């Protein structure tokens, strides 16, 4: 089943077009890797897919998805060093997307949070302070939060940008595992070789837009 269809879309801010003539689709269970130079519009595309901004032209069709069903891991989250928050509090906040008007977390929400913490191997950190974790641990926590928001599809904006090589390899492994579990992945990456090796489709933004399978990209 096709989840997302981008039909001749132009992205940008106000009158400034950043990306034009964008066509691609994302199927259920897909693993799409988006690459391109700094400023090519990768984050802009992600924000548009999330519905945080509107495309300048063209249509983005979400099939069987509400915009809030998409789990999101933002690029360099501007979270402050001294923010007092436990891992548990942060992961639980991912459940808010489904709550709408209910003020408190239910037992089911807590279960979902616990499951996702376990999935990403951070359950032992549940009561720790987020600020005191390593970069790799922090990304896992934020990924667990994104999973609470959405079971179907994840949008990851440079999830390994600030990680050391070991944590990077770890992160890629986790993401592949999630994809094998049936979660659709859209990931932005700088690290072309490693990322594309695992992806099924590649979208390159820039002067010449490329969209195709990762085998075709290498050829």
């Amino acid at each position, binding site marked *: 089943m096709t989840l997302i269809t981008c039909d001749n879309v132009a992205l940008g801010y106000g009158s400034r077009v950043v990306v034009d003539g964008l066509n691609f689709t994302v199927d259920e269970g897909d693993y799409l890797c988006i690459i391109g130079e700094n400023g090519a519009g990768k984050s802009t595309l992600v924000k548009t897919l999330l519905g945080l901004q509107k495309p300048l032209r063209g249509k983005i069709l979400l099939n069987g998805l509400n915009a809030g069903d998409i789990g*999101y891991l933002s690029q360099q989250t501007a979270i402050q060093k001294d923010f*007092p928050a436990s891992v548990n509090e942060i992961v639980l906040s991912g459940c*808010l997307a489904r709550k709408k008007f209910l*003020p408190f977390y239910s037992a089911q929400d807590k279960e979902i949070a616990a499951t996702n913490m376990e999935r990403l191997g951070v359950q032992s950190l549940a009561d720790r302070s987020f600020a005191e974790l390593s970069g790799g641990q922090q990304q896992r926590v934020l990924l667990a939060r994104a999973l609470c928001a959405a079971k179907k599809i994840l949008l990851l904006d440079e999830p390994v940008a600030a990680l050391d090589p070991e944590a990077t390899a770890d992160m890629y492994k986790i993401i592949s595992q999630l994809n094998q579990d049936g979660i659709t992945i859209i990931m932005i990456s700088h690290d072309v070789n490693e990322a594309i090796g695992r992806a099924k489709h590649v979208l390159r933004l820039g002067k010449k837009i490329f969209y195709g399978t990762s085998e075709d990209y290498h050829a």
Partner: protein
Amino acid sequence: MLETITMYLEYPFVINALIVGVLIALCSSLLGVTLVLKRFSLIGDGLAHVAFGALCVATVLHMANKMLLTLPITVICAILILRGGQNAKIRGDAVIAMISVGSLAFGYLIMNVFASSANLSGDVCSTLFGSTSILTLTEQEVWLSVILSILMVAAFVLFYNKIFAVTFDEDFARAARLNVDFYNLMISIVIAIIIVLSMNLVGSLLISAFIIFPALSAMKLFKTFRAVTICSVILSVVCAFIGIAISILGGTPVGSTIVAVDALTFGLCFAVNKFGGVAA
């Protein structure tokens, strides 16, 4: 000592002052954590100066109920400052500085030119540093502050999880379809209301200390959002209680005394964080 305290507690005005003072401390500390973490610590300061300017205008106009002017103006400025903070072209702190210094200057100027009061500097001083009006509260005012505080606490508890999400990570909250702008707007409006209502107690210069000290102290002691929020409320309430008690016993100005107690508490928390074992 104890006798003096029991003697004072027999006066209803002392009880009233304690009730209202503690309630203001409670309400102002609830959102303090959020403001500090959102790097909006100075919004309280800026708004307090705006409220001062508006109060000066109201005084000059001989308005019977000065709140009718100060409240709307302060709320509007709260919204403007917030919008400015989101606009990358003018930095948030610059907007706050502009509005706050501007209204302070205009307020004093207007008072000077138009006011007929013989005791101008006394009037200005009590607006800036709080007056003794907390000791002359009517029963009606006490009830009003009790009701407002209950509403405030209830709203905070109901929206607690959303306030956390919006404070921690606005982008994610937006992606999760929370109405981030609405919550930011509500936070500013509530802060503006608290500032106007508590100006009588601590005065406009000291109100932001009232908002941020308990939050900063609590952040020295605890590392989770819930613990920090609860701790800052408790610290704020206890400090206000002690401050008011000291000021009644020692005849010191109420606002300054409370803030002095807040500052000492912060020093204590800082020392505990630095040299002692830190609570988890």
